């Protein structure tokens, strides 16, 4: 009994000191935040009077250093989020812990958690002394798991150890430990007077540790070229690749969350329309930023305010938009000028001249996504800025990319003469993300597939057969990493056997056609032989063949 008592007191002490540590850390953070606040105040940005604007976040939160992450971190957070008592959540979600446990490296970033493991180790040893037959398992209760900003790499080894010992389970013991721990933890948390006063040098040491940790973490995060992620691929999930249409349909099924609140937000923004008009007329241009698609908002602005005036709508997210096309539509459709220009700069000069000569000309320009791939270049921005600096051209644009303001230097900013408006709408970027190159892998395959089928459908039956042959051969060899492609001679042989071609020349003619549609690629090997390849990934090719089979 005495022994137990002793151990327990030891435990409480260690817990207490640890809690102390935590507080120290958070004190430092508070200090940092305070310093930031000072700078912020110096800039005249005090959060107190900002309404509806999310500008009360300190810069350190937005732009922070990268810290090393462990592969299972995400799954862990996911289960944590799933666990947090959301009002109508099913209380027990037994799969989640299993899921996290699946990943090889036991997650142990939080100091507290690893510390808990340590404590458990103590208890475990103690219990071993008591009853040697019984084995004990340490599954960390989720309630106790606490997240902490600074991970401690030194404690890593322990955690792995603890993970290794979790094999069997003894209900009674675990319960006991849990209650013991929770009993210990609450008094420690409330920070009684009995805690020994923190030694100063300890705090200092921690701070130093923290500093050196930060440095080490920085290099750890940036030096290693290797990133640890799991090797699972979407293919193994056997997930059907969604094309644009099905995606769209599926999303239609999912109701838009918080529609009422979003509508309210939009109404707030819409009340600004007349102010925008006023400011546009006074020589400012307007740029909208904030999360969520601003397309509908601008569209509404257009329909409600600009019906009686000439205006130009530019869909910046459109993948083939160029400045040239914008300038062209101004010269050709607004100014009714027929004729080509040697360079965009000439064209711009012409436009500027026309607008300066004729003061009755007025043009509203709406640009959705001024920061899109095609328009973000220096030259395009320069031209657009010069356009917008014209007195009788009124520009209203939206930006979404986090680094969009970097496009503009002081000179361009002064040409644009922006007034910034935060219009967070939370509405989904439906149009903006609907173009192929703005999407992730899932879509690129589907589009390639549809283009494959489209092209092939317009070809003769023989040509399709030829392509099938090649595709099949390529699939047969898909496990061969050094597969160079099918050599022309072999291919010719196969095609002849299948009665698809009768001469070398017809095959070549056919291949030229494929090549023109970018269906195949030829490559000369080291021996000078021509090899043929289909530059599409295997899964798409499989899908394609399946589809072809259905059709036939």
């Amino acid at each position, binding site marked *: 009994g005495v022994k137990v008592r002793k151990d327990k007191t030891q435990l409480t002490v260690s817990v207490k000191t640890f809690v102390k540590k935590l507080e120290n850390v958070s004190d430092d953070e508070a200090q940092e935040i305070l310093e930031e606040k000072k700078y912020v105040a110096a800039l*005249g940005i005090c959060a107190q009077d900002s309404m509806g604007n999310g500008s009360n976040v300190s810069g350190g939160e937005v732009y922070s250093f990268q810290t090393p992450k462990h592969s299972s971190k995400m799954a862990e*957070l996911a289960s944590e989020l799933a666990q947090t008592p959301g009002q109508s959540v099913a209380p027990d979600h037994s799969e989640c812990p299993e899921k996290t446990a699946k990943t090889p490296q036991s997650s142990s970033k939080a100091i507290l958690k690893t510390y808990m493991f340590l404590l458990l180790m103590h208890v475990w040893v103690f219990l071993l002394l008591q009853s040697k037959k019984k084995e004990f398992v340490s599954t960390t209760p989720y309630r106790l798991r606490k997240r902490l900003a600074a991970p401690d790499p030194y404690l890593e080894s322990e955690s792995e150890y603890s993970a290794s010992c979790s094999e069997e389970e003894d209900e009674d013991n675990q319960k006991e430990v849990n209650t013991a721990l929770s009993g210990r933890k609450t008094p420690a948390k409330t920070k009684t007077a009995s805690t020994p006063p923190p030694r100063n040098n300890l705090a200092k040491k921690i701070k130093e540790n923290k500093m050196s940790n930060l440095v080490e973490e920085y290099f750890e995060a940036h030096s290693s070229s290797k990133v640890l992620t799991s090797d699972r691929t979407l293919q193994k999930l056997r997930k059907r690749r969604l094309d644009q249409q099905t995606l769209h349909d599926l999303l239609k099924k999912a109701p838009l969350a918080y529609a009422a609140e979003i509508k309210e937000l939009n109404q707030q923004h819409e009340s600004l329309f007349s102010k925008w008009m*006023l400011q546009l*007329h006074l020589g400012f241009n307007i740029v909208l930023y904030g999360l969520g698609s601003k397309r509908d908002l601008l569209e509404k602005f257009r329909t409600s305010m600009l019906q009686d005036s000439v205006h130009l709508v530019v869909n910046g997210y459109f993948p083939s938009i160029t400045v040239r096309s914008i300038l062209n539509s101004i010269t050709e459709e607004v100014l009714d000028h027929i004729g080509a220009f040697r360079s965009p700069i000439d064209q711009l000069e012409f436009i500027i001249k026309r607008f300066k000569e004729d003061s009755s000309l007025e043009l509203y320009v709406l640009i959705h996504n001024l920061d899109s791939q095609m328009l973000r270049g220096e030259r395009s921005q320069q031209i657009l800025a010069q356009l917008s600096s014209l007195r009788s051209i009124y520009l209203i644009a939206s930006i979404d990319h986090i680094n969009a303001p970097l496009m503009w230097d002081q000179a361009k900013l002064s040409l644009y003469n922006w007034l*910034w408006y935060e219009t967070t709408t939370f509405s989904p970027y439906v149009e903006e993300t609907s173009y192929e190159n703005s999407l992730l892998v899932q879509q690129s395959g589907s589009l390639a597939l549809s283009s494959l089928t489209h092209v092939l459908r317009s070809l003769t039956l023989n040509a399709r057969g030829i392509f099938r042959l090649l595709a099949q051969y390529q699939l047969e060899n898909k496990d061969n990493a050094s597969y160079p492609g099918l050599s022309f001679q072999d291919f010719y042989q196969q095609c002849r056997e299948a009665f698809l071609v009768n001469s070398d020349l017809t095959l070549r003619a056919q291949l030229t056609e494929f090549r023109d549609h970018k269906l195949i690629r030829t490559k000369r090997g080291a021996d000078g032989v021509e090899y043929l390849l289909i530059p599409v990934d295997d899964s798409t090719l499989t899908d394609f063949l399946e589809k072809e089979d259905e059709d036939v």
Partner: protein
Amino acid sequence: GCFVFKPSPKKRRVSQKTVNHFGERKDDSEDTELRFVTCQSLWNEIKLETEQIQEDLNKQLFDNLVSFLRRSHSEFQEKTTEWTCQMKSREIPTAALVLGVNVTDHDLTFRSLSEVLQNNITPYIALLEAKDCPGIKNLMQKLMGQLMNCYIDVDSLEDEDCVQVSQNRIRCSMSSLINWYESVTKKTDSETPRKKRTSSSRHWQSPPVVVIFKDMESFTTKVLQDFIVISSQHIREFPLVLIFGIATSPMIIHSLLPHSVSSLLCIELFQSLSSKEHLSTIIDKLLLSDRFPFKLGEKVLQVLINIFLYHDFSVQNFIKGFQLCVVEHFYSQPLSILCCQLVDAKKRVNSLSHNQCENIRRLPSFRRYVESQASEKQIALLTTDSYLKEIIQKLLEDLHVYHENYVSVLRCLHVFTSSLPKYPLGKQIRELHCACLENQVWETEEYESSLQLARMLNKSDLVTMLQQCVEIFVSSSGKEFDKTVEKLKEFLTQFQKLEDAFQERDVSVSSQKELQKKTDLYHLQKTLLELKESRRSKKLTKFEMLRFEVVDYIDGLVRNYLVPADHKTLHEIVYFNTASVLREHLNAAPRTALHTALNNPYWYLKNQALKSDGGSISNKAPDICIAYKLHLECGRLINLVDWLEAFSTVVMSVEGPNGDAASSDQVDDVIHARFIRAVSELELLGFIKPSKQKTDHVARLTWGGC
């Protein structure tokens, strides 16, 4: 991607009335037009004033430049034959114009510079910008285009075929340029000598050709070098002068150009006024004068100044901010119709509608005023419009007088504080102005310490300061300062008397000094200590008494006249105080807004389900927030499968009952689609990008962020 919409021609109104947009927000639309007109006229006045200031400030610089240009080719003008022999070196006269980092202001400077030059020196000016001149060919083309055009401008009566010779037909070379120059100067010489004399006598016979490089730093080295080398070959036939606009430091010329090229230039340095001084003048003329009825509140001014000091040093942007303030004030404050010259304001008060009277009654400062009145007066103020109008007129007048006095006393105080060591109240008058607007300045520590310091000023300083103050008060328009001036003059005469008295005593002091000279270090220390002791115990000298009196008098002035504006009744009419608007629109932080939206959607979507404490977000947040939160936990690469799984775990847990579906590895199609949408939205926002390093991985583009 581009769509032009044209209204049907009959529907097109001649001009969209800007006024219409002005007051649509408010229900009291009666005054909007008047308000708008007032706003416009006020703004135009301010704009004119700023332009005038700019012109005045640049005058010195331009005069120097003009005289430099005249000098540079005086030999060429004289057409002396030996000139070519004399000028063995082929140096091009060059003016290096250091303009400072505020690039945005340069445009205006160059525009007025070219105007000045056009009027005084030469019609042949070309303004080149780096962005138009990626190669020497483009540069020449641009140069010739500008020169030929201005030639046409000079005498438009010339035969048309000259105009027809467009740039692309002429071969762009130096020789053709020289030919053109010769023909032009000859023409003006021979053909129409009489006419030319009269019309453009201010130009020389063969005026120099001025080429201005607006942003010298951004030109490619090669282009500059080539141009300088080529034109130095022809400097004898072609009086060329270069002007370099420099934003950084004159050293840049030498780092851009190798010695062999820079030796072809004969550089003279010109320094423009620093933008800080420019700003001080602007503030002085716009804010600290009673010409303009519109005033800026303390916070607003602080924001504008901070944007200037921390971001761009651009006076142009400051003025833009000022414009925004004006517009915003007139837009949001219905009572701003009274924000005009006092005479007009009084007239307008009489024609105020009942609604507007109610607006006035609602003003916090006016309520305070009412509460301080006797009860029968209170009732009259709150019920009778006509009485109210009378009172308003009086109050407006008070406010006007307050401003007049405020400015003079502020300047006077600034005379004192600007010479104190360490400048406890700031060096610039704008800092003092801010401090006075913020709260009662005499209650601040800084003011206390500056008074302490002022009590230690020596006499000569004090006298000069007093003289300056007298000048300020004499020239001020305030009517109450006659007494003050008298008082100050009295102080001055007293100082003068002291001086006379002091000179008489001077003899005795000198003897004491002699005595001190003989003592050694030890004794000196001793006597000094004694002196100190005696001073502490001794009564104040006459001078010290007087000095105390002066400082106290100034202190009295300050307490009397430098009351913060928001203590004044009806200050809302002329002061613009909503700094948040200004900051939102001028100094926005788009990334922070995104951050807030993603991390704390409750900030925008006021739904209780989203409310959560601390840093974590609830699992009911919009999809993109969840995906974002999950991706923060990853390193540089993110496995899409893991991400998808984590995402679906979270989403499923919210949806609840059909927990069985989650057990299978297959994820619901709808959730899959939602995930895809969230991920592609994150890609659009620039948080991730597709990566080819590993299959089904995306790369993270931001650091940290949680």
